[in-house]
Structure formats: structure tokens, C-alpha cells
């Protein structure tokens, strides 16, 4: 495996309620990675989330189970580190999964990170993980890690990204890794 990236799709959100990738997620690659740059919500203190689809984006209710943990440091030097319940999902988690939470909406506040999906056409469950850094509305940096799997043997062929409240700006690019 070379680790070479192939750009499949690029999206620029500008006051967008969501960004969907409904093509290009198939058996062409064993691994996909999304890069997120300057993700800035219109609503303060909101969460950036994703959902998966097995029918090309007709609906996004694929069951998943996830973990969430982070390191946090405020600009006034208060720290927090460890597993975070409430931003993970049990097996009945057919709703959104957080990638970044508490994102600030000010003109200098944003989040950035990566999101990997492994073999979305697998006959096994489909694993994913992410790492984001967040400038949050409570004026702190958060180094946030999410991982888990879509608990389905069906394909994952579409992914949606959005804020849980309001619109957002930013750039999202999807690559295949070969």
C-alpha cells in the first residue's frame, strides 16, 4: 500500500445547512479520508456532526456505536482530559455522531480536522475515526478523538456533515487512499 491520496470530491460550504458526499464512496478504495478546514458555524456553541447512509443519501439512519475522548485547555489555563460520555453513541445510535462540539461562531473561531473511513463496501462493520482541534465558544482548545463503527453489513455509500443547529462555512475534501 502506497498511502497515496486521490482527490475524489471537494466541497465549499458557505452558509450551508449540510454538505453531502453521495458519490465516490464505493469499493474503489479500502480507505477514505476527509479533511476539514476553517469550519465555522453561524450559530455559537454548536456541534459539528456526521451521519452515514446505505442508500446513496436517501436517508442517514445507519446504526453505529462510538467512543469520544478529548484533551481540553482553556485560555485561562484550566485543563480537562479523558473520556466524554454524551458525545458517544450506544448501539442504538442511529442519529448524528459528533466530530467537534461547542464550536465558536466568532469571526476568528473555527474547527479543523480529519475523518477516516475504512472499507465502506466491506461485508463487516465499517470502522471510522477522527481527530479535530476546536476553538470552542467557551474560549478553549479541544483536541477531540472519535472512533467507532457503523454496525451494518450493507455498504456505506454516502456521508453527510452538518451543524446540529444553523449553517456553516468551510472546506471539506474527500480523498481515497491507495
Amino acid at each position: 500500500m502506497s498511502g497515496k491520496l486521490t482527490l475524489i470530491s471537494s466541497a465549499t460550504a458557505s452558509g450551508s445547512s449540510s454538505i453531502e458526499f453521495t458519490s465516490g464512496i464505493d469499493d474503489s478504495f479500502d480507505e477514505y479520508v476527509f479533511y476539514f478546514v476553517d469550519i465555522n458555524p453561524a450559530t455559537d456553541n454548536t456541534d459539528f456532526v456526521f451521519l452515514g447512509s446505505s442508500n446513496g443519501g436517501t436517508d442517514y439512519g445507519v446504526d453505529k456505536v462510538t467512543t469520544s475522548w478529548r484533551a481540553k485547555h482553556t485560555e485561562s489555563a484550566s485543563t480537562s482530559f479523558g473520556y466524554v460520555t454524551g458525545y458517544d453513541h450506544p448501539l442504538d445510535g442511529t442519529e448524528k455522531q459528533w466530530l467537534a462540539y461547542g464550536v465558536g461562531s466568532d469571526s476568528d473561531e473555527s474547527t479543523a480536522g480529519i475523518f477516516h473511513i475504512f472499507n465502506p463496501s466491506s461485508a463487516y462493520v465499517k470502522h471510522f475515526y477522527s481527530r479535530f482541534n476546536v476553538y470552542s465558544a467557551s474560549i478553549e482548545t479541544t483536541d477531540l478523538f472519535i472512533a467507532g463503527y457503523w454496525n451494518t453489513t450493507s455498504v456505506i455509500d454516502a456521508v453527510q456533515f452538518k451543524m446540529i443547529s444553523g449553517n456553516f462555512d468551510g472546506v471539506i475534501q474527500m480523498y481515497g487512499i491507495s
Partner: protein
Amino acid sequence: MSDDWKLLDTSTPSGASSVEFTDLTGFKIFKFVFIDVNPATDNVKFQFNGSDDASSHTYDITKTTTYFDAQHKQDGNYGALNYKTNHDLAQSTGYQSLGYELGNGSDECLAGELHLFNPASTYVKHFYYVGNYYQNTEYTLNPYVAGYFNTTSAITALNFKMDSGNFDGVIKQYGLVAS
């Protein structure tokens, strides 16, 4: 538009006090890969900082960061995962450590990857790092560092150095997502 990571620059410090990368344009994501980084002085920190100067760079950008690491000693003891409050920064213009207590033995070194997101952005500039190094009392240490340059000015250059003495190694700069 670039498909893959593009190699932009390679620095091979040999007894160098610091390494600068002064072109952070043309891409929205940069990756710096550190290979065989070996200090001349034992028990030192490997650090970086940013500049917003157009030239004659001063490295003094305000940052808020997190730092945690996993550790394990060669004798099989002291396996642990800990947040390190003495290696993070809160609105500091000082250098951010990517490792501490580095060993300078002939077989001791550091390796890792630092991602920097959109240094030309009008938002803060996010970064994160993961690496591994040979600590000077025979540990392996696996640090995770992240944070943001708290400025709306463009970050124009990065500087890497030990907090004391010179170092050898290879540092490669890559770009992704052409801007």
C-alpha cells in the same frame, strides 16, 4: 488542484540550532514530518513556534494548546497515559514542546508528524501533532499535542529547535489542498 501530499521542502539539520520553513503559502493544509531528530544535549525539549512577519521572522505567536502522552519504560514498568500540564500553553507566545527529556544517545531520537491547517486563514490556525521518541531515562513516549495560533494574521513561517543545544535530523514539509 493537487491530489496527493506534495513535498515542498526538505531540511536536513546537522548540528543546527534551529530550522525555519518560511513559505507557508499555496496550500490549506501543511504536514511536517520529523525523522531521526537527535539532540546534541541530553534531556532537552524539541519545540516549535510560528511567525506572522513578512521577513526577518520573530517567533512569538500567542497559542493555547493541549499536551498528553503515553509512556512505557524499557523494563516493562510505568506504563501510563497522562495529561501534562507543564507542557501545554495558555495564551503564551513561547515555544510549544513536541517532546521533552529527549535523549541524545547515538541510538536515541524523535519522529512524528505535525499538521497545520490554513496558516493564511482569517480564523485561528489549528494544528495537531503525534509522535514518538526515546526519552533519556529509557522510556518510549508517545505525545499528542494540539491547539491553535490565536491570531487572525497569517502565519508566515515556522521554527523548530531544541530548548538547549543543536540537533540533527530530517524535516520534510508537505502541502495538501491547493489554495
